[in-house]
């Protein structure tokens, strides 16, 4: 009975924190190979440059929990960052007003995504892909395709460049946002509903979860957080037309890799952050050693594929184990339900059916059985 239970208890360390161990391994290896690596400056650089990436990953995470892909986070961040700059430089708004307006626009984009997915019933993948293209165009329109000068007000630069405990304040924003998201996903009814929707949308709906409402809110939130990320990036590094696109894939890689950590098989915040930083440490170390510039996209691409492949094989192994476990319990179990007439008669379903038939009580069964 407790076959899978004991298996879960065994690998507490290695299974759930492999990322942390890997990160420590990277640090040790790179520190040995390069004297320049192991110093606080390196870590501060990693912390601040990856913070925006981390915030984008968090933006991706929330809708991902309820199975919505938000491919527009990069373009959204790009748009809001540029918007904040343009409002200050061209329209002479104050930094605060510009920041608030830009975040508002980010939320609005998220709500548009939500509307298209929930009301128009377009898949989130397609909807946000289309929206991201539109956002790129809109960004070009209001900037007239000219990169604006960076705003010089202290309000703007202080947004990201104050130091707190040696780290730039962006890092603190990231941690604060991560804590909020952790609270949302683990300790609120909303979090329960999001995971339920992601696990089985129809079952969640039948259990009274308002699927449309929560999917919409998840996408809206993603938009707002992306907006925030965009402003931070532009404040830190200056306005650019391309930073958004570059943040998208690493974000997804981190979210999926993060699902292998802490609570394996389940998207979660801290796993995502671990993934972001481990990947960054790996890339930074290799770049320092080799000077190659293609390392980041290579790393992130491979990591994304590896993370999803791992998840698929784990899922298949778990399903096989569950099936075997229930088959071995035939003595006191009716076994898995027989396949419906419409299902393809493959080898697997034939075995399943034989077990189901053998285990069923006489006279019992559904229409789908004899």
């Amino acid at each position, binding site marked *: *009975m407790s076959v899978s239970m004991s298996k879960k208890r065994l690998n507490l360390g290695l299974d759930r924190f492999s990322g942390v161990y890997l990160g420590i391994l990277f640090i040790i290896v790179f520190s040995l190979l390069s004297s320049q690596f192991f110093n606080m400056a390196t870590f501060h650089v990693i912390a601040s440059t990856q913070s925006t990436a981390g915030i984008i990953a968090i933006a991706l995470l929330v809708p991902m929990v309820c199975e919505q892909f938000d491919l527009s986070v990069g373009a959204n961040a790009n748009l809001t960052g540029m918007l904040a700059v343009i409002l200050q430089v061209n329209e002479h708004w104050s930094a605060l007003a510009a920041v608030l307006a830009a975040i508002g626009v980010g939320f609005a984009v998220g709500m548009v995504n939500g509307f298209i997915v929930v009301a128009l019933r377009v898949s989130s993948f397609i909807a946000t892909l289309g929206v991201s293209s539109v956002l790129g165009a809109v960004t070009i329109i209001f900037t007239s395709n000219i990169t604006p000068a960076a705003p010089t007000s202290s309000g703007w630069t202080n947004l990201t460049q104050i130091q707190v405990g040696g780290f730039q304040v962006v890092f603190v924003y990231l941690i604060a946002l991560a804590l909020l998201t952790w609270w949302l996903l683990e*300790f*609120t009814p909303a979090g*329960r509903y999001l995971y339920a929707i992601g696990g*089985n949308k129809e079952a969640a709906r039948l259990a*009274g979860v308002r699927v449309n409402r929560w999917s919409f809110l998840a996408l809206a939130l993603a938009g707002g957080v992306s907006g925030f990320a965009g402003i931070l990036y532009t404040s830190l590094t200056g306005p650019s037309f391309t930073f958004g696109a570059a943040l998208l894939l690493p974000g997804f890689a981190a979210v999926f890799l993060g699902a292998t950590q802490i609570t394996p098989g389940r998207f979660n915040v801290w796993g995502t952050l671990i993934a972001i930083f481990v990947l960054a440490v790996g890339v930074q170390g290799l770049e320092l050693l080799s000077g190659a510039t293609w390392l980041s996209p290579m790393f992130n691409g491979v990591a994304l594929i590896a993370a999803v492949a791992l998840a698929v094989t784990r899922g298949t192994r778990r399903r096989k184990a569950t099936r075997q476990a229930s088959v071995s319990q035939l003595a006191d179990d009716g076994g898995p339900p027989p396949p419906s007439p419409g299902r393809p008669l493959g080898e697997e379903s034939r075995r399943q059916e034989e077990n189901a038939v053998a285990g069923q009580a006489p006279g019992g069964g559904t229409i789908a059985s004899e």
Partner: protein
Amino acid sequence: MTAVLTASKLSKTFNGRTVLREFEITIEPGEIHALLGQNGSGKSTLIKALAGYHVPDEGAIIQVGGRDLEPGSPASAFQLGCRFVHQDLALVHTMSVQDNLFLTSGFPTRFGGVSRKAARRAAVRALSVVGLDLDPDEQVAALRPAQRTGVAVARALLGHDGELPAVVVLDEPTATLPTHEVHALLATLRSTAASGVGILYVTHHLDEVRGFAGQVTVLRNGSRIGCWDVNEISSADLVRRLVGKQLADELHTAQESPRPGASTEGAAILTVSGLRAARLSELSLQVRPGEIVGIYGLTGSGREDALTAIYGSVRREAGRVRVGSQELPAGRPDAAIKAGVGYLPPDRKTLGAVMDLSARHNLTLPDVRPFWHRGILHRKPEAAEVNTWFDRMRVEPRDGAEAPLSTFSGGNQQKILLAKWLRLAPRVLLLDEPSQGVDIGAKLEVHRQIAAAARGGAAVVVCSSEVEELVALCGRVLVMRNGHVSDDLAGSRVNVTDINLSFHGDQRERAGGRHQ
């Protein structure tokens, strides 16, 4: 004349359980032979053994047209002239009739490409054999259900080189057809038989046997009860042989008397009027607190849509549902829950549960508010409540609340899902196939809990394809056919034989209606 199909000593055993016991049958050319059997009688296993999907036990002799069938080989069955029309017609709806017809037997070709003219001619010929007047270019999706079944039959009749097959086996072809379409299909099959093809027709419906089949074989619990000329046996006799004297022995002995769900005090709490949705044409119903009402029917009867229509999880085309004085809106399961209704869906894996989530999360999903205090959900009180329910329902493993629901056995999963609703103390409990995929022990527990809920004042509606379950639980049973309630049995009429007799229908009434 050589028989088109003979079988003898045909047995099949799965893991020590004999599902089919020394079956035998003989079908002559042009004969329409009906096979009658209930759920669990071994019908499907028989057909799959003939089709080569299952390998029968040693010693089985199956011959098609005098030639031995190779066991376990679908190709052998096809080659010898055995054709099948399964419940899943396996037609591609987005393709034309013509394309579907040649899917299995291959297209007439010319120089490697499909010869459109020859194909069209062959298609028209194939359709005329079954008496279907259809445009071969029409999309299957646009056809009526009987026409689709007809196309599946026409395809089954396409032999190699224009030869008709020896025998066509149809597995409950009318399960999803409305009455007038059944008539059309039977006519199609009569013309087919007239061409010398043998027909083995598997069905639940007595009225399709009389006036259509020549011979009938009855299968019960894997054994061939007998074979009769249709004109030589009465319907009542057939039903008795079909159902046997089986009683729900384990269930009955375990049940505390008096029968639960028969107490009827006070005003109805659930009122359903003129409900119409999907395959449900019309349902009106009143259930009082403490009453357990059963709904019985097979695929296509509207039974499957009854509870979802009452709950409101599907769009309603017409009708109203009230719980007490509150109207239940359609499309709002959350509103139904707030009004005090609980709904246990039929298929756990796809509808009833979120399998990847823990048992705890599944159990508390409809209402987590009791644990929400000062901005967070408190785990301890939640775990405590979950454990209380685990104890009450005797879920094993008792301490496994944190494990994913998928790791529990089917019976335990169902107990957890039932607890999910009982926890809300619902005024109305809608249960769809509550013991589907559930072992005997868990089934008893589930039934005990349902009875207890009714005693506690809930109005319960149980939808099931298992007559014994309904007899064990319900004070009243509604029998559904073709989207309507065809009978309302109460009190002493709630027993296996009466429900089956009512379901299979009064022969005279049925025949009168059909010949209009």
